């Protein structure tokens, strides 16, 4: 059983709003250098799903990520949890990816890893919350995709997936190879093991650039985007305080009612 888990490095969702600056001209959000990066929490659950399969029936768990100058402390975390190998698509040209261009590169890397039975992704990234990458990877690879899984069991070449729906869950079967996106309902991911942390100094990730996976830089990252951001702005909430008075309490209440009516609130 050969599993690939796709993970994304994001800014720590715990960071306060004042840790970020909005760059309206480039339509992007710039985080302060002090804001730590973390593995997207949904992706950690995808890693956990893979490790549960590994615990039960044995599997090789490969972790795949994309970006540039990826923080090794962050991207090695799945290995500290128990994954076997780390593949990094690292190049300047991968910067600014949207779901489309990221999925295109990840799919190309999965093809290169080869003989993959199961691809797992988080249901969405906690920064963009688009929830498109897993589906797009499946599309690029021509594989079936099951989304929002809370449990995955594999028997032979069939995966039985419980997927979260509005009023509970439904159980679906999918023939492998397939792509499954994992939701937080899977339950907490395991802690990294101290033993694995100590061992991982020796781990050298496999590094690939666009050419290594058969792509050219002009279809990666920003250049390969299909999503066009038209405007990025902070919503402005204006508040005005108006004291509605009156000679008596009753009169003040009447005036307030009239005022609310004028504003069509009542």
């Amino acid at each position, binding site marked *: 059983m050969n599993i690939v888990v796709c993970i994304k490095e994001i800014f720590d969702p715990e960071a*306060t709003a004042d840790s970020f600056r909005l760059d309206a001209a480039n339509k992007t959000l710039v985080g302060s250098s002090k804001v730590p990066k973390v593995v997207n929490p949904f992706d950690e659950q995808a890693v956990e799903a893979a490790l549960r399969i590994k615990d039960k029936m044995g599997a090789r768990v490969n972790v795949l990520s994309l970006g540039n100058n990826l923080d090794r402390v962050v991207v090695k975390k799945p290995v*500290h949890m128990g994954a076997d190998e780390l593949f990094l698509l690292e190049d300047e040209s991968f910067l600014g990816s949207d779901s489309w261009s990221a999925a295109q590169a990840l799919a190309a890397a999965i093809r290169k890893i080869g003989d993959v039975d199961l691809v797992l992704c988080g249901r969405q990234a906690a920064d963009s919350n688009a929830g498109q990458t897993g589906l797009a990877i499946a599309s690029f690879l021509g594989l079936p995709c099951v989304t929002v899984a809370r449990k995955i069991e594999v028997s032979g070449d069939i995966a039985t997936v419980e997927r979260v729906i509005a009023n509970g869950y439904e159980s679906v079967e999918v023939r492998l190879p397939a792509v499954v996106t994992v939701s937080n309902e899977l339950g907490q991911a395991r802690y990294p093991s101290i*033993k694995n942390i*100590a061992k991982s100094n020796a781990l050298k990730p496999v590094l690939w650039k666009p050419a290594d996976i058969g792509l050219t830089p002009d279809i990666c990252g920003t250049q390969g985007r299909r999503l066009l951001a038209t405007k990025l702005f902070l919503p402005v909430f204006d508040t005005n305080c108006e004291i509605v008075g009156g000679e008596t309490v009753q009169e003040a209440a009447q005036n307030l009612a009239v005022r609310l009516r004028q504003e069509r609130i009542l």
Partner: protein
Amino acid sequence: MLDWNLPYLTEEHKSLVGLMKEFCQREVDLKKLNEMADKPIPPNATSADLRARMPWDLVSKAHDAGIRQIAAPTEFGGGGYGEDHLGLGAMAETAGYYGGHFGRLNTITWKQLAAFAYVPKELAEEVLGDFMRDRKTMMGASITEPNSGSDFLLPYDVPGAAGQYLAHKEGDEWVFNGDKMFCTAGGVSNYLTIMARTEPKGPLSKSVTQFVIDTRLPGWSIARVNDMLGNEIVSNVQMHFENYRIPDRYRVSPVNGAFDVMKSRLAGKSLHMFAHLGWSERTWEDLKEYAMNRIQGGKPIMQHNNVGMLIAETDCLLRLARLQLYHDAWEWQSLGQGQMRDVLGWYYINWYIKRVFTRIMEAGFEIYGGMAPQKELTFEAWVRLHLSIMHGGSTGGLSLVKAANIIAKGGQASPPVEDALYES
């Protein structure tokens, strides 16, 4: 939020920090820990009473995550980080920041576990084997005595002074009679390492032996519980030994040679400082948030010069204290204690960091005003703990006396006494 872009820390250290942060965020209930520490201790509390105050569920989870035993040697099932002062320090700081009391809950045990890299293998196997199996015990240490508290280890090395004759040898056994005074976690630990004067008249540097004691053996008892202004969850007891006997294999150091062994070890007290630093940084952030949000005179009090200045001053003090601690840990780890360039480092840290915490306390009372002593703020719990450990690692003033002693000798420590004092 702590900034981990410190040049002292490796990728591996940062991964350990990440683990500790995640563990604290998932498992530690700060409010509950503060309430547990605040619970009154009955005057005649027994070991069972003290154990009942402990958050064993949390301790057991820390054990399962490998955190509790991280400082023990790998051959006995530990994480093998006992000599990694920077790694343990960063983890302690993280635990203090995210977990308050949980910081020292770890460092008290880590400090002892690290020492087991040096004890005879047979003893380490026995004690650590037991510790690894039992997820509901701590491991503490004891030095002070009724007539020699924070001044147990004086810089003068006067014959017969300070710690008093506690143990003598009979055949293959050591027999203990007397008391140990302030023993953190003494009532909740199965094993403690203790410093015992075994030669009545000599100077301390040549008269003390280190042992491991098993608190379940006959002759050991709790003389009294030290009920303090700010109790720690692990509590603090005075231990009494009456014809308490342990075999010679429980001896850790050569007879009367405790200081010769200790000088090469990790600076345990500094780990406690890391934990307390973390909690202090969190306390400062809460203080800053309050100053940013509390409106007075039409603007946040942070914009009132007197308050803003206090926030900036304490930020500066904390940053310096942090750098001092990390630099000292780095020097210790990379050069080795005997090779340290700055032998005064620990003494100055022990004095300075307490000054910093006290200044934050003053600033807190200025800024929070009447809110400061309210138990709904974690500031109140932090203040009490700070006051109750002001003496730790010998008092700040005594540290300066020791430093002065070294300066007078031309800036060089003369082993083994000053080296051992580092450990005290």
